[in-house]
Every structure is written in structure tokens, then in C-alpha cells.
């Protein structure tokens, strides 16, 4: 039983990790520079 739970945890960690990575990669590819603004609390450079 412990072996099953242990490997299930490993698989879940790998799946969650991969999903986060894929999601971030999608956002990198669809990023539009013209819609971005740098975050500074004094907005003197924009």
C-alpha cells in the first residue's frame, strides 16, 4: 500500500510540475510586449 501511495505521489508531482511548465510556456508564446508595462511605484520611466 505504501509503495502505491509513494509512486502515486511521485506521478502527481511530475504531472503538476509539467502542467505548470506547459501553462507558463503557453503564456510566454502569447505574450505581447505592447500590452506590457513595467511595474515601478514611481511611474517616471513610462
Amino acid at each position: 500500500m505504501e509503495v502505491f501511495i509513494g509512486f502515486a505521489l511521485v506521478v502527481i508531482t511530475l504531472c503538476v510540475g509539467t502542467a505548470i511548465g506547459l501553462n507558463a510556456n503557453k503564456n510566454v508564446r502569447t505574450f505581447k510586449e505592447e500590452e506590457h508595462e513595467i511595474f515601478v511605484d514611481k511611474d517616471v520611466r513610462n
Partner: protein
Amino acid sequence: MKNKDQQMLEDRKQLNRYGYAQELLRDMGGFSNFAISFSIISILTGAVSLYGHGLTYGGPGMMGFGWTIVAFFVLLVAASLAELASAIPTAGALYHWAATLKGRRIGWYTAWINLIGQIGIVAGIDYSCALFADPLLATVFGYTSTDTTILIVFGVILLLHGILNHVGIKIVAKLNDFSAWYHMLVVAILVVSLAFFTKNGLQPIDYLFQVGQTFSDKPYFLAFLIGLLQAQWTFTGYDASAHTIEETVHPRVRAPWGIYNSVAFSFVFGFIMLAFVTLSIHDAAGAVNSDNAFIYVISQALGGTFGSIVLWLVTFAMFFCGLSSITSFSRMMYAFSRDKGMPFSRHWAEISRKFRTPAKAIWLAVILSFALALIDYLTKILNPNAGYSTIAFLTGVSVVGLYVAYGIPIYLKLEAEAKGIFLRKHYGPWSLGKWSKPINILSIIWILFISIMMVIPPNQMAAYALGGMFIILIIMDLSYYKKHFKGPQAALEKSIEEIQRLEEEFEHEKE
């Protein structure tokens, strides 16, 4: 698709918008940025030097369950930090993010807590290296390894790291790249050796997930939680990819990947390594009662010369890990000092015109790390029955210091979003989208939990040290910095002409 020169010009302009000149040499690629964090996480340092700690408290199940549970949550923390690095790509990283999201004073505290964690991590890594190197050297040169000889070896290792970091980022970057491959290769050698040459064969797979057995006097559940220090300390220092962001080409994408991938790859390689090391144990009680459980297990499993070669390979991996951690530490101090957050800031913010490295900050990192281990050494001389291990103390300080510093900007980002200050348009290219909020919240919960776990007895000395340092910080803040520290916001007052003049000076020096 931009070429490297166009990209570097754009990166420089991006940095200028935060009020900073491009002083450091921007030459690191994506792999180098990943390699520095992967080398600092160094599964061959953290997981190995605290192997005895994990085994003593959590038994074999610590390697199967403990490693995976910690890795799951650390992936979330890494994703949260990666997102911030992409949004605000400056070397100050945690400190700069906190100061920008909330205010200069919280930024100042974040920087100092990060700095304390960095002292702990450099001292912990190089002390681990000395713990392995000294007995091996003692066998070669025929002397007896003692606390004093370990301290001397530790000092020599720090000195070598100081020199290499001073000489240049190009050498260090090459060594970091080599270190990443080296770590993977040594893990492969270790795994193959254990798989085929372990005396008496490997244990059945159930052994890796065996829970309920502790070699400590604590109840198992509590002992398991204390044992998590092994994995939690291993997964530290990946903020290095953010601290070297001003030396990375295309940093808003490459540094976040460096942070995230270094944790992900360390999880996979670390799990495989720990599984084989643990399955090769045939005398767990003997291992936990030995001076160094990992050396004991490898020596028992592989024996003689073969075992010694593997231990030398592991020791060199620790050496590379320490080298990278001083790079990260010095960049963090450089960034904080250029905003005048430390005493004698002018010196630590100075860049060597010849090597384009923060030379004085590098040597300060060396001295502070040695001082922390020296204080511990003297404490043990004055109180020989202190009842704690130096490595657990150093690693406890670094885990809490670093993770609290990781948690502050993550929390402040959530707060700024709730107040409508930090908006969708402020995210960089590497972002988590609608997953951001739940991932950030889970990260903070984990950080709170782990910060308490890492300082409860038998590791209470770390709590005393951190408490003492925090009192000193409050005194420093109230007596001077509250009035005089202007934070990264002050850099924004510099004119673009002033920034460009400074950059031209550096270019001129290079020619």
C-alpha cells in the same frame, strides 16, 4: 527573432528603465542561468550531507515520501518566484520585488533576511564539502580529522571560491555549466554502481517507502517533519537565477525557466539517486550511528577504493555548489548595496573594472560565511555538550532565512493584486495566468509551515541565531535606515544620461 546583440541592447534598455546601468557583464545564456541554480540546489550536497539527518528522523520512508512531498510544494514556490523574476528582472530580486510591491522598509528587511539565509547557505554548503573532504584528505595525508581540521579545510574551500568568483563571471559560468553536467553524470555513476555492484544486492522497493520507523526519541510523525530538513535544505538557493538576471541574455524568459527547471530537474535526479542509495542500505542502525551516514552506506555497499572514488566525486560536486552560491550571494549584496542598504555600501556595490565582478562583495560573502561557522565552532568549544550538529544549525538558518525572504514578495504580490496595484499588464512573459493566485497561496502556506518545522528542537539553535539577528536588524532599522534608506525607488531619480555615462565608462574600461 532577434540576434544576440539586439537582444542585449533591449535587455540593457529594460534595466535602464529601473534606473540601473548595465555594470555587470551580460553574457549568460539560458543553460548557464539554469546551471547556477541547479548547482546551488545540488542534490549531491543537500540530500547527501543531510542524508543521516533524514534517515535518523524519518527512516527509509523519508527518502521516498519526504523528498517528493517537499519537491511538490517547492515547485509551487519556484513557479511563484519565476513569475516575479519575469515581471521585475533586476539582480536585487526578492528585495527589489518586495520594495517595489509594498515599500522600501519591507524591502530592506527582505534583503537582510535573504542575506542571513545566504550566509547560512554558503556556510552550510562549504561546511558540507569540508565534512566530506577532510576525512578523505586525512586518509591520503595520514592525519586525524577533527572539528579544527574541518574548519581549516572549510576556510581553504571558501578562499578558493572567493578567488574564482573574483577572477570572472566567464570562468564561473563555464564552471557552472560543467557543474550541471557533472551533477547528472555523478548521479548516473552512483546509480549504476549501486544497481550493479552493491554487496548483498538491493532491498525490495517497499523499503524506500517504509514509514513508522525512526531512530530518534521523537514520536514518528514529529520525527518525520523534523527530517524534512534534508529535502527542504536541498531545495534552496534557486533564487540565484534571479540574482544573476542582469548577467543573463533575454532574462525575462530565461531566468524564470532557470528557477523553475532547476527545481524540477533536481527533483527527478534527486529521487532516483536517493532511491538507489536507500535501497542499498543493509544496516540502517549502523548508518545513523556513524559519523557520516552517506559515507557509511556507500562504503558498506560498494566498499574500498570504488566507494572512495564515488565519495571524491560527490565532494567535488559540493565544491561546485559552493562556488555558485558565492556568485549568487555576492550579486544579491551588490544589488542591495547599490541602493545603499548596507553599512559601507559604496564598497560592496563597487564593480571591478578589470573583471566586471563585485569583487568586494564576493570577499565579504566569504568572510561572513566563515564567521558564522567560526561562531558555531567557538560555541561548541565553550559548551561541548551543546547537543546539536553544526550542519543542522547552518542549514536551519539558511532554510528559514531564504524561505521567509521568498515568501515576503509572494505575499506582497497577492496583496498588491488585491488592492489593484499590480495588474495583468505588469506580468512578464513567464506567468502562471489564472493559476497564479492558488499557487501563490499554497506557496505561502508551505513556507509558514516549513519555517516553524525547521527551528523546533533539536534545531532550536537556529531559532536563537535568527532571533538574535532579527533584533540587530530592528536596531539598525530604527537607528539609521528608517530615515536614510531610499530603496530601489531612489535609482529612478537618475537621469538616463547619467546611466548611459556610467555604461560608457565600463565599455571604455573594457577596451
